[in-house]
């Protein structure tokens, strides 16, 4: 069990790159045993698999379901799967799914209420699903988890639904050996190497000599798994090879985001006319918020059955790009796409710091890839910088 406090501490220490713990080598031929050990310990394994032309995360029974020999090509508004020349298990970057769909499901029930004699009784929903082992968590996704930990566990109120899912999950990270064209984790200090926040971390090593995984232990829970595996000693050679894998990903980083002074830049550009230009392209479709691993906004829905004696409250993902999101009596506050895009980007890159002490962006590039019109967050930040309006802009000045 991980307690809330450690989760939050993890959240604030994500920049640390050192991980103490055992290191060893797992041959590809023995990789099936990782599945067996996890299953024997009662974990339901969730990992990458090929479905509907993309690599997404789903429950897995065996390593055969991993995207063996597959990779992805990504660009703004584009995602294509391609065959690799090798049989890599983790030779892709990230798809449209993130782990938040398991820790903070897109739709889940908060409570059930039953009408009684002179009122109603409420029964809270407690998580009784499986203990998940997340296999293939990227460094940027670890950072995203730490960020959501801060949201749901770090404040005065703790979300019990998130907490029970989070505490029971085992995290097996995979260091990236490839970066996509929309990746910019190195700009955000979140990758491509997993620093902390995992139970086990793998680096996939493929060469003429063979196919193996360098395993690093990140926690006691991870060590328990590690000890049950047919681990061989990893020498300097393997360590070096693993470093080279990550270095290659770092060198391939397709995008960059200049974070220098970015928060203040956004704060003083609420009135920048550039927002109007983005708004002309933006469809306000909410795709970016759905694929974002840190976006946490939700709404609630009340449901009743036909008899009217049973009611349920469900929580589902919501997006600041919808008109309903800001509805109060009299109308929506953010009527224009301009205001909604501004809210989203300013939240990610500026107000998040004041709310939770970190950036809300981990540089995974999903919002760029999955934007149907290819709006690029890094490009928008650059354009805003180019048209920076200088001193703090307030409505008062703008209207004066």
């Amino acid at each position: 069990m991980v307690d809330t406090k450690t989760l939050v501490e993890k959240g604030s220490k994500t920049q640390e790159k050192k991980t103490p713990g055992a290191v060893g080598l797992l041959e590809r031929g023995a990789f099936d045993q990782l599945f067996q050990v996890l299953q024997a310990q009662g974990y339901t394994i969730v990992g990458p698999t090929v479905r509907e032309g993309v690599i997404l995360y789903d429950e897995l029974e065996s390593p055969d379901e991993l995207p063996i020999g597959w990779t992805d090509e990504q660009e703004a508004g584009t995602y294509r799967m391609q065959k690799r020349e090798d049989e890599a298990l983790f030779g892709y970057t990230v798809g449209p799914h993130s782990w938040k769909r398991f820790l903070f499901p897109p739709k889940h029930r908060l409570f059930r209420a039953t009408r009684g004699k002179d009122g109603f009784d409420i029964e809270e929903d407690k998580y009784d699903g499986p203990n998940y082992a997340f296999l293939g968590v990227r460094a940027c996704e670890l950072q995203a988890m730490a960020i959501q930990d801060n949201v749901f566990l770090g404040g005065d109120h703790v979300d019990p639904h998130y907490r029970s899912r989070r505490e029971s999950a085992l995290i097996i990270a995979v260091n990236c050996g490839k970066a996509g064209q929309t990746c910019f984790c190195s700009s955000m200090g979140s990758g491509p190497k997993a620093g902390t926040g995992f139970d086990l971390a793998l680096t996939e090593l493929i060469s003429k000599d063979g196919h193996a995984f360098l395993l690093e232990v990140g926690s006691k829970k991870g060590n328990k798994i590690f000890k049950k595996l047919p681990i061989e000693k990893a020498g300097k050679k393997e360590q070096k090879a693993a470093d080279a894998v990550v270095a290659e990903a770092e060198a391939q980083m397709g995008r960059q985001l200049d974070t220098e002074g970015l928060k203040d830049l956004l704060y003083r550009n609420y009135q920048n006319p550039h927002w109007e230009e983005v708004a002309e392209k933006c469809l306000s479709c909410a795709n970016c918020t759905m694929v974002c691993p840190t976006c946490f906004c939700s709404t609630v829905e009340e449901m009743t059955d036909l008899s009217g004696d049973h009611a349920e409250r469900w929580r589902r993902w919501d997006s600041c790009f919808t008109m309903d999101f800001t509805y109060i009596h009299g109308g929506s506050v953010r009527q224009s796409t301009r205001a909604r895009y501004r809210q989203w980007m300013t939240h990610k890159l500026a107000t998040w710091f004041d709310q939770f002490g970190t950036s809300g962006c981990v540089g995974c590039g999903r919002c760029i890839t999955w934007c149907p019109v290819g709006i690029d967050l890094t490009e928008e930040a650059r354009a805003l910088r180019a048209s920076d309006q200088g001193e703090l802009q307030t409505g008062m000045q703008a209207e004066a």
Partner: protein
Amino acid sequence: MLPRPYRVIRITRHTHDTFTLEMEPADGNPAPYFQPGQFNMLYLFGVGEVPISISGDPGHTRAYVHTIRAVGTVTEALCNLKIGAQVGLRGPFGSSWPVKEAEGSDIVIAAGGIGLAPLRPALYHVLAHRERYGKVVLLYGTRTPQDLLYRKELEKWRGLFHTQVEVTVDHAARDWFGRVGVVTKLIPGARFDPFHTKAFVCGPEVMMRFTVMELMGRGVETENIFISMERNMKCAVGFCGHCQYGPTFICKDGPVYPYSQIQHLFKTREL
């Protein structure tokens, strides 16, 4: 996170769409203490949940008092409740009018429409500890005389020799002998020392904007002006993201803000 059952013990109708519910915990225990300006989440079985400011006396915590305007699905259903009905309640949440810090100062309370509801607990507190404050002024504006909330209480407060109460309406028929005009017009005639005043303002945003300008015009510093903000809200505990206002969450950091804290946001449209 779960609503606690409360029972409606009194219902008062004010205007055609405004009413007050008084409710006490169904289990007979006292309701938790609240600070003036805070709000609760009211849940109606199978209908939904809404944030409603507390408008009762903070000195009496046997029951919560909520003045509500029926404008949506949940508030309209709340409007149709009968005495004895059960309501779910979470709270209290949010920041409050700084009545403690305001001791020794003059108090200006400026309300527009139903904005008087979250201010009434502050007024109750100030009047209950009248000797701790300097001059006390209540400025209240509504659209028409029919929209005035708490009319009997207003008349009673107006009869107090130690409190200035001014009421105005935007438009009225001939049977109205009071003032006509916007609430900001009352500020020049209000008796307070601008340099030793705490002003509490609540109403539509446009009303608060002009009220703040008038108060600043008389010399009240922005850190001594407090306003109560409203946004869509689902969870009240900072999870749902709906009530974000710049870097703040209205449910946690608000609803009551010193104007100095948010003045750079206040006039940014569609924030």
